[in-house]
């Protein structure tokens, strides 16, 4: 458990690794001459929160878009729950969901309508009860008949998270999920997601530029730079291993490519 949103991951790190929910193998994507993702491989295990870190343009969102099936890799393979996304995208995505600050839900539908439409897209069983539960969990009950476009950015983020939880996903992709949320709400949301993951059924891929949050939430982090994984490890021990005072400093080092050879693993 992560009391108060803070992480205590050592017990889970010592368990034998269960079969991965997400398996990414040698993923590559280029836009013209620019390689956005260059041979990235990693796994997300059930009950694991994996942080995907890196400066702007490092390839995080490109990687997430490929996992979400909205961008076709040039090379490589993505498996979600053992299903190759290239072979059966719909089946692979039925046990996946995501929330991202750059993907707000339609502003012309109310909160409840949005959840109903996306619940139908994910073929959620007993949708009415699920919506009620999520409205309550994400403190959206009083906004149920408010159009999503009229919500504050923090409320919209909570709605995106509620939508992301609709189908009780086995794989949850969160791209800066607490970016526009106040510290108190952010802590509640982190705690909620950690609790959801602690049942050992779900894995999370989490990107954030808030290193305090990453250290509190993530079991493991990957640092991306120029489309490659340059560092991987436990966010609590990684800074010390690489001579940085904190995860924040380590991030700055990676962003400035000051690491030896730029490719430490």
């Amino acid at each position, binding site marked *: 458990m992560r009391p108060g949103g803070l992480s205590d991951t050592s017990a889970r790190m010592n368990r034998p690794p269960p079969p991965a929910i997400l398996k990414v193998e040698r993923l590559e994507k280029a836009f013209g001459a620019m390689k956005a993702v260059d041979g990235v491989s990693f796994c997300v295990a059930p009950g694991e929160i994996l942080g995907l870190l890196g400066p702007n343009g490092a390839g995080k969102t490109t990687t997430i878009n490929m996992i979400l099936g*909205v961008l076709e890799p040039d090379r490589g393979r993505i498996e979600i729950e053992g299903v190759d996304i290239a072979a059966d995208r719909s089946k692979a995505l039925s046990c996946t969901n995501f929330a991202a600050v750059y993907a707000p839900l*339609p502003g012309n539908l109310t909160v409840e309508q949005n959840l109903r439409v996306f619940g139908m897209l994910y073929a959620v069983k007993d949708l009415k009860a699920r919506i009620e539960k999520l409205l309550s969990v994400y403190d959206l009950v009083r906004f149920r008949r408010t159009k999503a476009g009229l919500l504050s950015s923090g409320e919209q983020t909570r709605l995106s998270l509620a939508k992301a939880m609709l189908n009780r996903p086995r794989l949850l992709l969160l791209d800066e999920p607490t970016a526009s949320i106040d510290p108190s709400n952010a802590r509640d949301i982190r705690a909620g997601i950690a609790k959801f993951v602690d049942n050992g059924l779900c894995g999370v891929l989490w990107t954030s530029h808030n290193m305090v949050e990453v250290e509190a939430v993530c079991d493991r982090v990957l640092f991306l730079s120029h489309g490659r994984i340059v560092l991987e490890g436990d966010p609590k021990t990684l800074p010390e291993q690489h001579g940085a005072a904190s995860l924040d400093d380590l991030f700055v080092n990676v962003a400035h490519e000051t690491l030896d050879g730029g490719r430490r693993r």
Partner: protein
Amino acid sequence: MNASRVGAIVVRMAYLYRGSPQRVFPIFIFVAVDILIWGFMTRYLNSVSNAGFNFVPALLGAVLLWDFLTRVMQQLTMTLFEDVWTRNFLNLFASPLRTSEYLAGLLIVAVTTSLISLVVMLILAQAAFGLSFLVYGAALAPFLMVLFITGIALGVAASALVLRLGPTSEWLIWPIPMVISPFAGVLYPIAILPGWMRAISAILPPSYVFEGMRAVVDRRPPPWDRLAIGGALALLYLALACLFFFAVYRSVIRNGLIARYSAETVT
């Protein structure tokens, strides 16, 4: 095909129509205005012409049928535009929704709203100008079907263009029916067109419909063989439009456009 996912696209539009009179209004208003203008025009022509020819079914009927085709196409494209305007493609296509299910949802919305439009047209034309399509009975159905399939094909092709060229292609989409209409012989026989225009007419399914309808109005036997050519062309265009849509979808997935969809991202 998953009914729940197709239903989601339909329900989304139902919510939008329910809470938005400004979306419901255009379903009726364009049709009503066209019927009024052409209804009075034909009434005037009947009063000044000694040709003994009733312009009401020939002109007003033709306008009504052309409006039907235009509504089918525009309703399909409008439904897609709702996702363009709300930048909803990433949410939709990162879900288990299949492209065919999305297209099926767009179609159901377009069919439903166009049929509502058609009923309003028929009631208004009958009430205001005494034009009743019911006198043509079941013979009208194949004509409507060809127009309907053509409208869907145009809508699917236009939606693919929007997906590929971005939101600004809206400017390109709306005039499509207007560009086709001179060649379709909506208000005049194809025979009066110059040769090069007749050649284009020959590949347009609506031209067979309007030629056929003129025969029906003149109480000549409907040219079923010609209408069959129109029907076959309409089906061919529908198949090509669907292939075009799927090809465009694959291309925007390959170049990442769908994840970054906005007016500024299109190259």
